[in-house]
């Protein structure tokens, strides 16, 4: 890396700048819109200069949305809480179920293991609609419709295969000898799992968990179909700003900003896990 030419460094810089602009511009634009009212957002042509207002955030946090058609009650904070609760719990359950399973697939080549692993993965790729609609019927019969438990179960469709397959790779990358050494030293398989496999695959588990969290957070259709309004996540909740008196772009923007914030905070906190953790070389180094 030392002997890269100046030209190359400049080109790299330009390329990186373009990338950052492309991916960040809409985010910045959304951020700016979140401090504007529809009046300034809907100007022709669009303008950069505006008088910022906190009205959108106030409306979201207090739950009172003022529109042409009067003051509406919105449950955005409730939606936000639902998103947090559903995503966190789903990922936690998926980790609880998926990590041991991933370990089993990685360490024990047992009869049918590849088939079972593949079946588990294939659920990730069953079109959501395919299972969702009959599932509604069954949930009704089981009394799981409109319960957090039912939702968390269905969210496993999103989280579990992702965790299973990413974490499995990490476990496989831990040299088996390291675990054998611990077993031979006199420890049970469970102690070995806990003291050796888990810590060594830890960064990978954290990273897979974060990705699963993002996908769970972004889900839209599961909660919509299976739960009543008080259990809806932000993705559905944000649509409430499409009202009969027009789309409240400012509030949607604020809602997006607020809905990104928890995930972003988590990602920043888990930064070194996310980038380093996904690199499977944790053990090799």
């Amino acid at each position, binding site marked *: 890396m030392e002997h890269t030419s100046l030209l190359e460094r400049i080109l790299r810089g330009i390329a990186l700048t373009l990338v950052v602009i492309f991916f960040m511009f809409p985010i910045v634009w959304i951020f700016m819109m979140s401090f504007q009212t529809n009046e300034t957002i809907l100007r022709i042509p669009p303008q950069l200069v505006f008088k910022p207002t906190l009205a959108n955030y106030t409306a979201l946090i207090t739950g009172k949305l003022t529109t042409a058609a009067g003051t509406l009650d919105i449950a955005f904070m409730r939606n936000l809480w639902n998103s947090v609760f559903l995503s966190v719990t789903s990922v936690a359950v998926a980790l609880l179920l998926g990590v041991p399973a991933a370990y089993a697939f990685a360490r024990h080549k047992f009869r049918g293991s590849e088939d079972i692993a593949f079946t588990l993965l294939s659920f990730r790729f069953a079109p959501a609609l395919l299972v969702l609609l009959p599932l509604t019927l069954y949930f009704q019969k089981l009394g799981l419709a409109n319960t957090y438990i039912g939702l968390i179960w269905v969210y496993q469709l999103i989280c579990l295969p992702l965790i299973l397959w990413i974490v499995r790779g990490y476990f496989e990358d831990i040299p088996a000898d390291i675990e054998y*050494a611990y077993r*031979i030293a006199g420890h049970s398989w469970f102690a070995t799992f806990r003291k050796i496999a888990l810590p060594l695959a830890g960064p990978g588990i954290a990273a897979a968990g974060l990705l699963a969290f993002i996908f769970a957070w972004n889900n839209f259709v599961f909660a919509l179909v299976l739960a009543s309004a008080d259990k809806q996540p932000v993705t559905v909740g944000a649509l409430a700003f499409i009202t009969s008196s027009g789309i409240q772009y400012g509030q949607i923007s604020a809602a997006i900003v607020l809905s990104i914030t928890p995930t972003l905070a988590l990602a920043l906190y888990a930064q070194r896990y996310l980038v380093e953790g996904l690199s499977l070389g944790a053990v090799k180094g």
Partner: protein
Amino acid sequence: MASLELRNVVKRYKSQTVLDNLSLTVADGETLVLFGPSGAGKTVLLRLVAGVIDPDEGKIFIGGEDMTDLDAEFRGVGMAFQNFALFPHMTAFDNIATPLEASRSSQSAIKAGVQNVAKLLKIGHVLSHKPRALSNGQKQRTALARALVGSPPVLLLDDPLRNVDAKLRFEMRLELPRLLADRGATVVYVTQDYKEAMALGDRIAVMSQGVIKQLGTPEQIYREPANIEIARLFGDPTINLLDVKPSRDAKGIYVGLSNVQVHLTGAYDATVGRDCVIGLRPEALSFVDESTPAAIPVTVEAETPLNEKIVTLVRTVRGREILVSRPAGTPGQSEGRAHIAVDGKSALLFDRASGDRIGSKNVINLRSGEAA
């Protein structure tokens, strides 16, 4: 302390048989070296004993007790791995302490135990380091310390010197026998280095393709190799192998080398007229005067010192290349024409078709697994 026995053990991976009906007994306190090329099944055998993999057939006894179905943690063995297999997230101290923790020793006992073995292996100063910060030699000693610390009755050492530099290997080769003897443990030691095998083993088991080809003391293996392959593996420089067809004359059985008749001793009667290979250790050859009876004329091609020996490559009049070795400082010839003599008594004769040594008493029967 405990003896170790494998009885008719078979291990397969998919369609490949890695260990084929193998039986082996290691006496209490004995050091057995498993020697053989990679892929011979040595490591698999160790792991079967350790209990981290299961045999498809057969039984494993430690101290006379059937351990076949017992998990690794209950077998009471210590093991050092070729690639060390240190726990990367623990300090050297914690690494070494793991067997003691498993036996629920007290904190002070653990501390004393670790420090004791660390002192013995001269790694007391790096106990607080993580493996990443250790040199290869330190890693190797840490791994060894971890295997030794609990004073296990059975020690399994999987080529522990493979991944360390030559200097350290040399040092350890000197240290290890004393260390192992002090422990009094039953040791199974895997290596691909014949010198290591010779230096460490009470007995050596030569393995190839999942079977034990020969089992014996280092002396036996060297003097009476079961077949050409083993003869070639033991000895540096390697043994000279020449195609011959023994004949008989009045003096007995002889083979012709460059028109010279070299008479053999021993019961080689049955070999007359058969296609054979003669094995001549380089040190069994010596430079002699032209006048010496049965002196073979050769041309010296090259000469090189090897350890405390001098190895000379010579060519016979028929164009066959032969290595001759002599202790450094003894007279020899470094160029031109010369004559060599063969010590017929130490010559080994192998059947060319099977590669087995003729008259071998130590060949393991391939099928039954019993010593013939």
